[in-house]
């Protein structure tokens, strides 16, 4: 342990701690901008400078390790003045249009400007005047807003191993750019949106489509139907000032009805259906010597990654569409028929924790209903804005139920929102289908949690099935390299592109640290525990759709509506 004094308070901290960490221990909060709790130290913004006795120059608290007998002062006039000047200089190169910014009210730079009472900036405002990049349907970049902290680069390279973003140039001319300085669409970007969470400001954001949604609501001919992804409920509470997981599902449904959705259904229904299709696909591959290991296919960022970096392994991907797209094709066929609604009038909106879903919905092959299956994808953040715009008081809203035919779900669908959930849900069903026995304890806890790579073995009537789960694409890459080398011991691999799974998706409330992802994961399993039904194959609406419409898993209708194919992304450079 190392003894030091921070603002006159004596403290002992482990060797190797930084000033920032030590100060936090005694309740001294040092402002930061480039610092990210889950990333390497960058020390490029200098906002966290402090006085260290014996040092002539101010030291960056995020980078400076403590030493025995150190005396740190974090709030002297000299320090405060330096921090203000640093902020003024950063702001001098930053657009001043906070009111129109996608991060207005949720921006680390804006908060610092407020905390430091920055009023009249003595430095002239000079922005670079660079064009915005709207090349992808999922996210945009506004390079003028970039503060060069490089957190997005670390998210893209270290966490996701995608390397779509890098640094160009040097010194005052340096910029964060997609590969070769081109637009994002040409880069290897897989549209996971983890850069959005990493960005402290509004330099990267989702392709916001609130206007399109409001236009659809205003169109009297459109019947606006929605589906909610499993990871959304646990996080939407954060958007409206509630605690993670605290939004009751029926109140959420009522809120959606209040903002104008004509019908509220649930992606969880097709998550259960996915288990029926994907579980049977796995059993078929095991039985008939199909391509193994089979990879899950729910995560569109992961699909983009596989098509971009491992096009030779796309045959390993389950042919199942994601639950969003299964839902999309069924809502304009099966559901329209059940409800007696002309599918031409249905405007299908999905509410997703994801920005890659915006890209997935726009894939040309996702039109198997005869229409575009999912017309619009709104992220959790966009729904949060719509809720705030509508002035809803969720403490006073009465509950409401889902509409029929595609709104019932089991706990197995709920856990699709967290890393390991698809695997656990599949195991709950596959075990019972294969063994004919009732699974007494449905909890496969070994598959749970935010750990990068998890593995498990399940005995199915004497056949040992080996499974692996990865979240975050740098972890997925390790499993993929094994498969490519022919050394993978697994039969079934679940991949979710985002750290922690969909609860940490690129469309979720801005997530400043992994601890928040863990809270959401916990909330997912609380919801699963509370479900009466926890196995996909006992969902009565799933039984009904097979009786009335699909007839059997992997059957002709399923093939037509619920399964898809993959492409080589053919990126020119990786």
């Amino acid at each position, binding site marked *: 342990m190392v003894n030091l004094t921070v603002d006159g308070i004596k403290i002992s901290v482990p060797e190797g701690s930084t000033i920032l960490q030590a100060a936090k221990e005694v309740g001294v909060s040092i402002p930061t901008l480039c610092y990210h709790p889950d990333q390497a130290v960058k020390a490029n913004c200098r906002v966290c400078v402090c006085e260290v006795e014996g040092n002539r120059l101010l030291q960056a608290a995020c980078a400076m390790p403590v030493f025995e007998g150190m005396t740190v002062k974090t709030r002297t006039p000299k320090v405060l003045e330096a921090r203000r000047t640093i902020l003024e200089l950063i702001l001098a190169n930053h657009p001043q249009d906070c009111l129109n910014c996608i991060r207005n009210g949720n921006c680390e730079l804006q908060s610092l400007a407020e905390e430091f009472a920055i009023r009249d900036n003595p430095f002239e405002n000079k922005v670079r005047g660079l064009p915005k990049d709207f090349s992808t349907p999922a996210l945009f970049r506004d390079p003028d807003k970039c503060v060069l902290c490089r957190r997005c680069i670390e998210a893209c*390279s270290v966490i996701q191993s995608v*390397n779509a973003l*890098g*640094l*160009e140039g040097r010194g005052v001319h340096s910029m964060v750019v997609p*590969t*070769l*300085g081109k637009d994002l669409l040409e880069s*290897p970007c897989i549209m996971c949106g983890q850069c959005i969470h990493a960005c402290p400001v509004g330099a990267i954001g989702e392709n916001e489509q609130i206007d399109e949604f409001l236009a659809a609501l205003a169109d009297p001919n459109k019947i606006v139907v929605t589906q909610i992804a499993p990871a959304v409920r646990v996080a939407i509470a954060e958007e409206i000032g509630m605690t993670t997981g605290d939004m009751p599902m029926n109140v959420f449904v009522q809120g959606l009805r209040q903002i104008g959705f004509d019908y509220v259904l649930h992606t969880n229904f097709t998550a259960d259906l996915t288990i029926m299709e994907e579980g049977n696909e796995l059993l078929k591959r095991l039985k008939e010597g199909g391509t193994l290991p089979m990879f899950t296919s729910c995560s569109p960022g992961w699909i983009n990654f596989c098509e971009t970096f491992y096009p030779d392994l796309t045959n390993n991907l389950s042919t199942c569409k994601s639950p969003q797209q299964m839902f999309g094709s069924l809502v304009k066929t099966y559901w329209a028929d059940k409800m007696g609604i002309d599918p031409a009038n249905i405007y299908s909106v999905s509410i997703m924790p994801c920005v890659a879903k915006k890209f997935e919905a726009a894939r040309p092959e996702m039109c198997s209903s005869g229409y575009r299956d999912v017309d619009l994808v709104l992220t959790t953040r966009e729904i949060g804005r719509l809720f705030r715009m509508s002035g809803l008081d969720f403490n006073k809203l009465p509950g409401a139920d889902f509409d029929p035919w595609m709104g019932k779900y089991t706990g197995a669908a709920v856990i699709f929102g967290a890393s390991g959930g698809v695997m656990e849900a599949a195991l709950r069903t596959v075990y019972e289908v294969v063994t004919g026995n009732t699974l007494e304890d449905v909890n496969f806890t070994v598959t749970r949690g935010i750990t990068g790579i998890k593995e498990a073995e399940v005995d199915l009537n004497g056949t040992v099935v080996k499974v692996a789960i990865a979240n975050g694409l740098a972890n997925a890459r390790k499993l993929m390299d094994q498969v490519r080398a022919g050394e993978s011991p697994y039969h079934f691999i679940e991949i979710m592109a985002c750290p922690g799974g969909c609860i940490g998706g690129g469309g979720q409330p801005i997530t400043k640290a992994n601890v928040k992802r863990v809270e959401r994961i916990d909330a997912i399993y609380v919801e699963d525990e509370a479900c009466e039904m926890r196995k996909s194959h006992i969902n009565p609406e799933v039984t009904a759709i097979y009786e009335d419409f699909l007839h059997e898993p992997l059957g002709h209708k399923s093939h037509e509506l619920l399964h898809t194919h993959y492409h080589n992304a053919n990126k020119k*450079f990786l």
Partner: protein
Amino acid sequence: MGYTDIIARYSDKPGGLIEAFHAVQKELSYLPEEVIVEAARIFNVPVAQAYGVASFYSMFSTKARGKNIIRICESAPCHVAGAAEVVAAIEAELGIKAGESTADGSFALELTECVGQCQATPVITINGKAYLDVNPAKIREILAEYK
């Protein structure tokens, strides 16, 4: 020799990417996009990273430029000694501005940081060769060597 072979000569050296870029640039005068992509493949690094290296060093150009590269120091000692007049003289002689190349592709004019010859300012370099104590009157003669 194609650029792939040039790059491959350095593939086993630590930090060989920079040397490979220098070698290719000696032939092509700049680093075309396909060279950066190929170098990334050979050195097994992401293209974004290879591009970061190529764009970081002012010695490298990722844009096409003239064959003979004139660089003039814009650091303080040269500035005080009259670098601006030298720049103006070169610009007048070649009919281009700093940062541009001549239409016939023979010259590129670039500004650079200190080249370490402050004892004899202003300094220009052409293809790496330093010319000391330069003044506007000397420009025509110096450039004639390369015409």
